[in-house]
């Protein structure tokens, strides 16, 4: 019996350069499932993608195609939060389809009415914001200027960060929203110079990069900080690396544990960048869905959400990235399993969120390098 899962992501639009590696992450999981015996009774697991364009409305049509034309069992995606919500509400909820987003981080997803169908393999920005605040305060940074892209992601993230930072005793000297996709942000930057520490919460392919470059050129700032949307090496094209050496960033990640190491090896083997933003999370999402389908015993949508919860959370025998054969075996035997992903433990709470790990990155020698977990 065969099964198809969908991938919904912004192949065009503001994160178009982040999307392909994320998709490859998901594909990697699917390849491994197929290489290790396939799904159910030897069927092939397929993955098919649609372009949600990081936009709620475009995503509605894309999700509709995946769900009602391609008939996918479940979906990895969307990436941007608006994309996930748009796709889910218009096609996911009516179609009773599980969405596992590897990247939608906005807090608004937590409260979405979803019939227990929406999950994510990355922690909410409610966490990332707090962690970022703690990290900055820990480094002795006492005042920041924040600029965020004016969407659910940026606004939610900024909100969490600012609250936490102020509660922790820091000063937010300026907090300015900006619109995506402009050629020039010098004016916005002019309103941010009240602090020398600039926090940019935006997408690397779009405003994030331009703002960073123009900030560097203006010479008004000394420290640069970015959120998950900024962590892509595309960010640094056209910026003299030495000027942003030491830029700090955060994103969801996993501690350097066994699972992460395993994934890194797998990715290297497949010729993928193991550090690509949200690629591990996408891998996890796809792998989890495969496990859930296996657990559910059929390529039906019915019951998948419970199955997903079961395979993802403790108790159970630990399954690590790539261990499909073992997992399949255990499921067949009726043993409970607990997937420990490349991006963390992945124990879903009631809202389908995970309590994840936020890692710190820094630019060293012209590219992002992991510094370690923020605790």
């Amino acid at each position, binding site marked *: 019996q065969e099964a198809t899962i969908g991938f919904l992501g912004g192949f*065009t639009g503001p994160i*178009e*350069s982040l999307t392909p590696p994320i998709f490859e992450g998901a594909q990697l999981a699917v390849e491994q499932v197929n290489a290790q015996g396939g799904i159910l009774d030897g069927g092939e697991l397929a993955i098919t993608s649609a372009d949600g364009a990081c936009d709620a409305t475009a995503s509605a049509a894309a999700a509709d195609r995946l769900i009602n034309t391609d008939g996918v069992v479940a979906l990895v995606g969307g990436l941007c939060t608006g994309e996930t919500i748009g796709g889910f509400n218009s096609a996911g909820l009516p179609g009773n389809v599980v969405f596992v987003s590897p990247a939608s981080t906005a807090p608004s997803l937590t409260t979405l009415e979803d019939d227990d169908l929406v999950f994510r393999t990355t922690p909410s920005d409610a966490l990332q914001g707090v962690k970022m605040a703690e990290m900055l305060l820990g480094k002795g940074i006492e005042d920041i200027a924040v600029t965020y892209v*004016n969407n659910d992601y940026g606004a939610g993230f900024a909100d969490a960060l600012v609250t936490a930072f102020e509660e922790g005793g820091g000063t937010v000297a*300026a907090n*300015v*929203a*900006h*619109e995506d*996709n*402009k*050629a*020039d942000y*010098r*004016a*916005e930057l*002019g*309103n941010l*110079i*009240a602090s020398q520490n600039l926090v940019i919460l935006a997408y690397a*392919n779009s405003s994030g*990069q*331009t703002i960073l*470059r*123009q900030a560097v*050129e*203006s*010479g*008004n700032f000394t420290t640069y900080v970015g959120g998950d949307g900024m962590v892509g090496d*595309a960010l640094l*094209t*056209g*910026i*003299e690396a030495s000027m942003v050496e030491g830029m700090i960033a955060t994103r969801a990640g996993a501690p350097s544990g066994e699972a992460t190491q395993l994934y890194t090896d797998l990715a290297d083997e497949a010729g993928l960048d193991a550090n690509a933003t949200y690629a591990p999370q996408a891998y996890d999402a796809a792998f989890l869905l495969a496990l859930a389908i296996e657990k559910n015993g059929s390529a039906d949508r019915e019951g998948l959400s419970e199955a997903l919860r079961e395979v993802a959370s403790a108790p159970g025998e630990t399954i690590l990235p790539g261990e499909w054969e073992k997992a399949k075996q255990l499921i067949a035997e009726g043993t409970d399993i607990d997937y420990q992903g490349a991006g963390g433990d992945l124990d879903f709470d009631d809202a389908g969120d995970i309590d994840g790990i936020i890692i710190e990155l820094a630019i060293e020698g012209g590219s992002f390098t992991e510094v370690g977990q923020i605790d």
Partner: protein
Amino acid sequence: MSELVFFFNQVVIAGAVLGSVYALGAIGVTLIFGILRFAHFAHGDMMTMGAFVAFILAVGAGALGIQTPIATGFIVLPLAMVIAAVLALGIDKGFYAPLRRRGARPVTLLIASIGVTLMIQGLLRLFFGTGTYSFFDTQPKTIFRIDTSAIGSTRPLVVTEPQIMLILLTIVVVVALHFFLTRSRLGKAMRAMADNPDLAQVSGINTQLVVRVTWIIAGSLACAAGTMLALDVTLKPDLAFNILLPIFAAAIVGGLGQAYGAIAGGFLIGFAETLAVFNWTLVLRPLRDVLPEWLELPNNLALVPTEYKLTVAFVILVITLLVRPTGIFKGAST
């Protein structure tokens, strides 16, 4: 004094740079409108395409080991402009000329140019993917930080090499264009044709030639504008499409068909955008101590919040049009 320098950096330089890009783009839009009577929507993507041409040339030059004192992007610009002009002629021949021959209305040409814009966008992404490129990957971008402590400022005056070049180029283009349009036979023929194509034809003006010249000018200026923009920011497939609306606004505010109008409009829109969101508190700060207690400076004294930045450009546009319905320089209309 720091405040003044800050103002200069934030408003004068930024506005001039933005204004120059808008102006260079808007000249092409306005000339095409004048001669061919339609709003050329693909102009933004012609700019991007031109920038990619320059980029390929620059990379090629780099690969050949050619080292240049100023950024290679500038050195290759003339060649890139020639290629862009040829491409523009090709686009006209392929997509607009057949429609003109069949006597299509301006709006049809406008929609055709939307078609062209979509095709260019698709092709650019096909060949260059969606990533960002920079002219300054291999060579550093020179940033001049002029120490202004002499006038008592703690901030440097910051201006980059591409910005200087861009402003210089704009001046050169403006002057050259002025002489071309008012002195040369061909320039006058262009104006005549913009005015009354049938009569121009009757006067023995080779209208085909005028159309070709228009595309050459528009194409090469688009290339220059795109390349300059890419040098100033970065190169990506949606580089100029995003500034298409302000460019059109500039052309319209200036008066369609009026080259000088386009320049004025470009700078008007550019400065409006930067001024509207400029935070006056930063300039007024030295007055902090003089001001009475009750008149405390708020944190943000910008005319509008930054999210309404583009809105300001359009409000100016609408108001200008209400006062002068065909733009500052009394433009043409179909």
